[in-house]
């Protein structure tokens, strides 16, 4: 069994009577990109702060690389970095000076290593500029550089693409994948962006209202939600047919002159279904496996439906 980078058991956190975390368990394998997904206010940042020893839980145990966080925090933080909430630096110092002075607190650091890391995040041209002149996106990237130094094995990134332009977002996502693939760094990302987790992460935990609602491999989680979709101009006929057929209709999306029906079922059932539809005189414009996105999974797991009004929690 591979080493666990993070092991959390029964982590609870209360703010007064409000339960921000209601007993979270977490097992994060070393060397993976792990996503932590949930709506705003679900408790993502609270858990990250607890995992970094910035916040004290009311109950629970946390181990980072097998070491007890509450007994050996300073030792653990020698190889753990993070960007929590927004990146906060000393604006009157240059990017290089910020990194040098902050990293020195964790141990020895060479000039070359700092320059190399600045290059890695695309800030090598502005390393000697004061951080006060940086855009938010540049500060985010500097935050990632800071999280990587001196030679961290685990990094926490709290909503890392916030405030970045599309190019910046792509860059950060590629960087995260590269860090994990080439350097074996474990990356723990929190996000409310489902697409981001889907594109970047190997594993995901979904959290809602302080409770873990799901934990799985991203690919398997999406695969588990097998769906078939077909598009037809004969909406009424198809609806009638589906009432009598032995299939579960998940959703019907009505368009101007056609409807898309999303059914529960594996793609191996498509030929049989197609035959039945044709036999019933229903024209088929398209029939295929419906590729669920993590968004579909999330909506299903957290008990929301897409017909609900757009949640203000996102």
């Amino acid at each position, binding site marked *: 069994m591979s080493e666990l980078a993070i092991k959390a058991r029964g982590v609870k956190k209360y703010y007064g009577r409000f339960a921000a975390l209601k007993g979270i368990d977490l097992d994060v394998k070393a060397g993976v990109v792990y996503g932590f997904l949930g709506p705003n206010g679900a408790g993502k940042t609270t858990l990250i*702060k607890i995992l*970094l020893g*910035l*916040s*004290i839980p009311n109950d629970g145990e946390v181990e980072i690389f097998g070491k007890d966080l509450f007994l050996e925090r*300073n*030792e*653990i*933080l*020698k190889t753990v*970095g*993070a960007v*929590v*909430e*927004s*990146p*906060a*630096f*000393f604006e*009157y*110092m240059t990017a290089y*000076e910020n990194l040098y*002075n*902050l*990293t*020195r*607190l*964790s*141990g020895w650091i060479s000039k070359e290593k700092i320059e190399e890391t600045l290059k890695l995040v695309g800030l090598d041209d502005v390393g000697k500029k004061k951080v006060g002149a940086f855009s938010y996106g540049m500060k985010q990237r500097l935050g990632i550089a*800071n999280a990587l130094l001196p030679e961290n094995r685990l990094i926490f990134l709290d909503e890392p693409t916030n405030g970045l332009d599309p190019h910046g977002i792509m860059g950060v996502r590629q960087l995260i994948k590269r860090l994990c693939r080439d350097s074996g760094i474990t990356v723990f990302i929190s996000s409310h962006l489902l697409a981001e987790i889907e594109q970047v992460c190997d594993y995901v935990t979904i959290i809602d209202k302080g409770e873990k609602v799901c934990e799985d491999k991203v690919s398997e989680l999406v695969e588990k939600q097998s769906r078939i979709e077909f598009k037809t101009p004969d909406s009424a006929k198809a609806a009638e047919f589906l009432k009598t057929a032995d299939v579960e209709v998940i959703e019907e999306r009505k368009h101007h002159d056609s409807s898309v029906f999303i059914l529960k079922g594996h793609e191996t059932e498509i030929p049989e279904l197609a035959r039945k539809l044709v036999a019933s005189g229903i024209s088929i414009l398209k029939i295929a496996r419906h590729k669920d996105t993590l968004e579909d999974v999330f909506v299903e797991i957290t008990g929301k439906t897409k017909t609900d009004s757009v949640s203000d929690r996102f």
Partner: protein
Amino acid sequence: MSKLLEKLRQILFLTDFELKKLFRQKQGYAGLIVIVLLVTLCAVGVYLRVYHPPHHPHVPNKFLGQMLKDLVNGVSFSLTVLLPGIYILLPMIIGIFAAGSFASEFQNGQVRTVSLRSVPRLSIVLAKFISLSFYSYVLLAVMLVISYASGAFIFGPTGDILVFGPAFLGKESGIYIMDGSIAYQRLMLAYFFAGYALISVVAMFLMFSAIFKKMTMAVVIPMGIYFTSYIIGALPFMENIQRFLPTRYIMIWKYTLAQDIMWEAMLTDGIFLGLYTVSYLIIAAVIMNTSDL
């Protein structure tokens, strides 16, 4: 042993970082500008008083002017500047810098950034305390150098000095002339103990910064307490409460100006001042350790 060395190394690096922060910010020099302003205004005021004395009905102008010319010099001028400086100006400057270095970093998230490193939170408080204490002594040194230099240039470098006992040591003290041979030594002692008093102000503002974690509150509340204590300390019929006021011991340096240095009173006040300082720091450290960042 190695753990102790590691902790000392961290405190050293943190203190170095804090000092860089203090001196890299342009506002770090605002304190120096204010000191120059104070010294300049005092110099003009004393110059006019010495060379253009107001008419006094019982003392001939010529006699008063000659007396002041004889007894005002670099040393006495520097001591004259220290009084308003240590009462109001320096605590205000130091307080704002302490709150700016701690509360505003709480507010803006830099405390969290530093706490994400392998450093105990207590070290962060200690490093801020050490660096701000050093900064207090730097401000005092600047005040000493500028005030002495300008006083020496305008009024002469040294000589006997006139000590207004009531201004420094209370109404029961009289006015006396301090021999020029001990004036330098007393001047240095006065500034050294003024620095010791300012350290207590640093600790108080750090404590309130840890409590409130917001710049405005961390400045207004301790500043309010500080000035309220001064006001109450000066009011009649408040004798029973005065000994407990945090400002009661700030003027410890004044004992160096007595005809014979009041070592016993200095020791007592010094211990109380030290206890206040340590208490402030302990509270700041406990709050820092138990706060969610």
